[in-house]
C-alpha cells in the first residue's frame, strides 16, 4: 500500500506494525534455538567441545577448545558497527532534502554510502562466520559430530541466514537508491529494514554472550 493517507487507527503504517509482530515471532524462534543450545550444553558425549580440551579415546587425538573468542569478538564488533551504519543510512534518507554544506555533512548524509557500508559490514561478518565454520569443520566439528555441533551450527546458521537475507534487502535498497534515488517518502521502507537489521544484531549479542562468553 502506498504511503498516502489511508486512515489508520494508530497513525502508523501497516508495515511498521507488521515488522514488529514479525520480530516478536522471531524472538520466539531464536529463544527456542538458544534454549536448545543451553539444554544440550555440556551433554555431548564426544568432543570437540566449545571451551574445553577433548582427547578422543579411540584415536588419542587431542582437540583444542573449538571456539575462538578473539576472532569472534572482532566479527561481533563488525556487526555492531554495521548497526551504526544502518542508523546513519536511515538518517540520510530521512534528511535527503536538508542542504549539506561541509564535506563531513555530505559524507554523513550519503544514503548510498551508508547503505553500502551496512551491507559491506554485514557481508564481512558473514565472511568471518564462513571462515570460522570451515575451520571448525577442518578441526573436526561438523553439524553431525555431536550435540554441540548440531545445536551450534543450527543456531548460528539460522542467524547467518537472517543476516544474509538482511544483506540482500540492503543491497536492493541500494540498487533503488542508485536507480531513482531514495527520498524521505521511502524512509519507512528503510526504517523497516533498519528494525530488522538491529534485531538481527541484538540476537547476535545474545548468541555471542551465551555461546562464546559464558562457559
Amino acid at each position, binding site marked *: 500500500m502506498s504511503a*498516502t493517507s489511508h486512515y489508520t487507527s494508530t497513525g502508523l503504517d501497516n508495515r511498521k506494525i*507488521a515488522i514488529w*509482530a514479525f520480530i*516478536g*515471532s522471531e524472538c*520466539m524462534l531464536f529463544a527456542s534455538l538458544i534454549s*536448545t543450545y543451553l*539444554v544440550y550444553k555440556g551433554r555431548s558425549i564426544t568432543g570437540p567441545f566449545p571451551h574445553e580440551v577433548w582427547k578422543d579415546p579411540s584415536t588419542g587425538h587431542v582437540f583444542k577448545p573449538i571456539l575462538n573468542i578473539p576472532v569472534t569478538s572482532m566479527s561481533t564488533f563488525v556487526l555492531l558497527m554495521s548497526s551504526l551504519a544502518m542508523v546513519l543510512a536511515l538518517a540520510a534518507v530521512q534528511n535527503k532534502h536538508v542542504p549539506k554544506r561541509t564535506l563531513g555533512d555530505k559524507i554523513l548524509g550519503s544514503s548510498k554510502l551508508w547503505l553500502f557500508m551496512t551491507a559491506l559490514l554485514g557481508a564481512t561478518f558473514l565472511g568471518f562466520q564462513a571462515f570460522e565454520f570451515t575451520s571448525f569443520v577442518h578441526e573436526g566439528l561438523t553439524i553431525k559430530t555431536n550435540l554441540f555441533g548440531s545445536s551450534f551450527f543450527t543456531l548460528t546458521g539460522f542467524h547467518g541466514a537472517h543476516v544474509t537475507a538482511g544483506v540482500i534487502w540492503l543491497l536492493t535498497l541500494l540498487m533503488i537508491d542508485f536507480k531513482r534515488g531514495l527520498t524521505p517518502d521511502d524512509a519507512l521502507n528503510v526504517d523497516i529494514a533498519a528494525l530488522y537489521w538491529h534485531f538481527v544484531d541484538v540476537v547476535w549479542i545474545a548468541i555471542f554472550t551465551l555461546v562464546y562468553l559464558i562457559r
Partner: protein
Amino acid sequence: MATTYHPGSDLEVLTPYTPSPTPATATVHKSSLWSWITTTDHKKIGTLYLFTSLFFFIWGGVEAEIIRAQLGGPNRHLVSAEMYNQIFTMHGTTMVFLAIMPLSAAFFNYLIPLQIGARDVAFPRLNAFSYWVYLFGGLFISLPIFFKLAPNGGWFGYVPLTTRTYTPGLNVDFWVVGLQILGISSLAAAFNFITTIINLRAPGMTLMRMPIFTWMSFVVQFLIILAFPAITVALFFLMMDRFFGTAFYDMAKGADPLLWQHLFWVFGHPEVYILILPAFGLVSEVLPTFAKKPLFGYPVMVYSGILIGFLGFGVWAHHMFAVGMGPVADSVFSMTTMLIAIPTGVKIFNWIGTLAQGQIRYTTANLFAIGLVGLFTIGGISGVMHSSPPADLQQTDSYFIVAHFHYVLFGGSIMGIFAGIYYYFPKLFGRMMDEKLGKAHFWVNIIAMNLTFFPMHFSGMLGMPRRIYTYDAGQGWETFNAMSTGGAYLIVVATLIFLFNFFRSMRSGTPAGPNPWGAATLEWTLPSPVPEYNFATIPTVTSRYPLWEGKDVDIESARINQQGGKTAKQLGIVLPYNTIKPLLVALFLVLMFCGLLVGQRLLIGAAAAMAISLYAWLTSPLEPEHH
C-alpha cells in the same frame, strides 16, 4: 430509532425484505473461476477457507469412522496395524491443522474487516498467499495416505520413534515438511490480522468497542506468532536429523527425547487455545443477539481471553506428567494448569449471565452456542481432573484423555463453529439456512457426540490405553467401545443433514436481508451477501453495539451501507487488483519443500521460480493509483 433492528422475529416469518433492483453484487454467485483464483478479497478468501476446511473436516471424519469401525469390537482387523497407525495420526493432524484452524481462519478472514469497519485486511495479497499455502500444504500432507505412506508417528510425533532409526520411510518426512508448510500459512495470516486489527479499525472503534469475536481472534493471532516458532524449531531439528544426520534426537549421541516434548508442547498447549478461542468468540456474538441483550461482562470476557492466552504459555508440561520431571516441576505445572481454569470458568458464567433475563430465541445458531457452553463445561471439568499429577498418572495416555479433548474440541470448537456457520451463512450467501434441518442437525449431533465420547471417560478409567489399533476381549471395554462406535455412525448422519442443508440453502434458501437476526455489530449493517467494497461509507463508531445503542451517526452510515446496489466504481472506491502472484509464490514454495523429498533439481528450480514470482509480487502495485 434503529431502522434495521427487527425485534426478534420468529424465523419462519421473515422480516419483509425486498431485494434491491440490482442485487447487491452477486459476488458469490456470478464470479468466474479465475476471479476466485486471483482474488485478494478477504471475503472470497474466507469462503475458500470455509469450503476447503469443510472438505478436510469430512476427510478427518472419514478417518475417525474407520478408527471407530475398527474399535467397535475386540480384536477386529478392518485395517492392518500399520494402516490404523497412519489413520489415527492423520485424523489428529487433519482435524487440528486442516479442519479446525482453517475453519477459524474462514471466520477471521470474512468477519474481521467487516466487524471493525474496514474494506479489507492490511495485506490482501499476503492473505491470498496464506490460503494457497494452506491448500497446497494440506494436499501435500493428506495425499500420501493413498500410497500407504501417510505420517504414522501420531499427530504429536514423539522422538525417537519418529527419527529415521525407528521410522525410516517417507511417512514422517511428509509430516515434518507438511507441518512446516502449514505453519507458514498460519504465521503469514497472523501478521496480517494483527496489523489489521491494530491499524484498520473504523474511526471511533476503540479496542474496547471491538466485537468480542475480533478480540478473541486478536489474542489467537498473538498465540500463533509466539507458539509456532517452537514447533518450527522442533520440526526443523527432526528434519535435519532425518535428512542430514544431525544429533538433535540421536539417542546414541546423548540426545534427550524431552527436548522434542518440551518444544512441541510449548507450541501444543497454546495451540489448543488457538483452537478454542475463536469458537468462544463466535458464541459470544451469537448468544447476545438471540437473548436480545448485550454480552454480560464484556471487559471481563476480553481480559479473561487475554489471560488465557498469556497463561496458556505456562502450562505446557501438564502433557508430560508421566515423564518424570520431578516433584517440583510437576507441582508448578499442576498449579498453573489449575489457575488457567479460572478465567475459562468465568467465561462460562458470563455466557449464562448473557442468557439470563433475556428473551431467548432457539435458532439453530443459538442452540449450537448453548451447546458449546454445556459441553465445554464437561470438557473443562475433565481437564481440571487431569491437572492433578497423581490422578493424571492413571488418566494420561488413556481414553479418559481422548474423552476430554473431544469434549473441548468437538463439544467446544466444532459446536462454536457450527453456531458461527448458521449465524453468518445469511451474510455470506444472502440466503437463510433451513431452520428445521438445522435443528435436526443440532439434536442428532448433540446426542451422537455424547454417545460417542462420554463412554470414553469410562473405558479410560477402566484401563484402556490410547493409540491402540485393537484390544482384547474380556477387558471390560467392549460395551463402551460399542457405544462410541454407534455414536460415531450417528455423527455421520448429523453431518450429512448439515451438508445437505448447507448446499441446498446456498442455491435455494430464503433470501436474507442485511440483518435477519436483529444483531448489533457492523457486519449486520451491510447487504447480504456483502458487496466487494464492504462499506459504501466507512462508519464512525460510537458504541460497542452500533445497531442497538449507536448514535445517529452510526445509524445514518448504516442506512447508506445497507442499501447496496452500487459498484465500487460508482462509489469511487479503489479496490486491489486481482493477481495470481500469491498463488504462484505459494505453489513454488510448496514445490520447493517437495524438492526436499524428491531431489535437488526440484528444490533449486522451485526456489528460483519462487524468487522470481516473489520479486514480481513485491514490485507490482497493490491497487490502481488513487487520485
